[in-house]
């Protein structure tokens, strides 16, 4: 007997096939599909998620659907985009637990294939910083193999495609000030306080 779930997934597959063929015919986008969704109203604002077969390749702070889709279309020129929130349910669940403070670590496949060289080593070093801990830009540059490249490290962190889960917010200036953050410094501050790496600010 066919269950409702099986029927639904057969429908989902047929629907996706229609959309993928339409992408190929009308826009020439015939690469591996990228699945996306947007989470509204998280404690750090609106978040865009995108994932391919290799894992989560985007976690962006965005203004909304259109903003995020525009970024994805620009960043992934040959890939069709499917809005399939269900495909990102596991990431969403882990983010919910993180924001609720129930579990501050992630177990998610992350696809950093868009990043290479020193930048990739910086992001890999960031992943190894434990919750509640921080490094300076100079320290993470050293861990990535070049202690004198703190500025390049900052640049690599600024362009981190998978925020929060690749914790580029755990890197501060040597004097303890926040430095920069692509999503806005208020978000960096929130994340660090949430993880217990910084005292909540007064006022």
């Amino acid at each position, binding site marked *: 007997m066919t269950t409702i779930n099986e029927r639904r997934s057969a429908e989902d597959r047929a629907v996706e096939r229609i959309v993928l063929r339409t992408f190929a015919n009308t826009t020439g986008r015939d690469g591996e599909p990228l699945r996306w969704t947007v989470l509204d109203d998280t404690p750090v604002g609106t978040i865009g998620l995108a994932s391919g077969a290799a894992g989560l390749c985007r976690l962006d702070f965005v203004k909304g659907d259109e903003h995020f889709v*525009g970024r994805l279309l620009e960043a992934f020129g040959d890939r069709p985009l499917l809005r399939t929130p269900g495909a990102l349910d596991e990431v969403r669940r882990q983010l919910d637990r993180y924001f609720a403070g129930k579990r501050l670590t992630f177990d998610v496949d992350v696809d950093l294939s868009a990043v290479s060289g020193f930048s990739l080593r910086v992001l890999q070093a960031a992943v190894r910083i434990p919750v509640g801990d921080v490094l300076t830009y100079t320290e993470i540059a050293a861990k990535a193999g070049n202690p004198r490249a703190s500025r390049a490290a900052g640049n690599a962190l600024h362009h981190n495609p998978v925020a929060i889960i690749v914790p580029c917010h755990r890197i501060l200036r040597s004097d303890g000030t926040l430095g920069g953050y692509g999503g806005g410094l208020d978000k960096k501050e929130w994340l660090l306080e949430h993880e217990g790496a910084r005292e909540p600010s007064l006022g």
Partner: protein
Amino acid sequence: MDHNARVARLLAAHGIELARHLRRLVRDDDVAQDLLQDTLLRAHRALTRLGRGANERAWLYRIATNAALNHLRDRKRERAALERHARERNGAAVEPDTLDTDRREALWRRVAALPERQRTALTLRVADELEYDDIALRMGGTAQAARANVYQAVKRLRLEGIA
């Protein structure tokens, strides 16, 4: 924003929902795909003219629903026009018909001016009512290529304000 970027944006944001809606209405994957392409084309033209409305999703649903409901009627009408034209070309007596003569001639001038493969694919699809698999068999190439040719042909005619 150019045509591709705009269609890509609409598809990325609404493609899954619209395809599901159309497929449920017409209960046929190939027809649903045609109608989805048709919906995007119409939406693209309207966007060019109007700019984007506040409720894009509802607006796209309306276009898609109309496209689905008009599907059979439109196919029938186009087929009749093409058949009349075929008869005229073969030297048969010209029947009085309801289609405006100027428009019909304009349509056929444009069809004749289409690139060879687009014209052939369009004619096989609309006049002969062949499935894309059969068009591919006759023309060589894949069903997807046949579908793309028909799509490009219809798009061109539409952009010229003919079909």
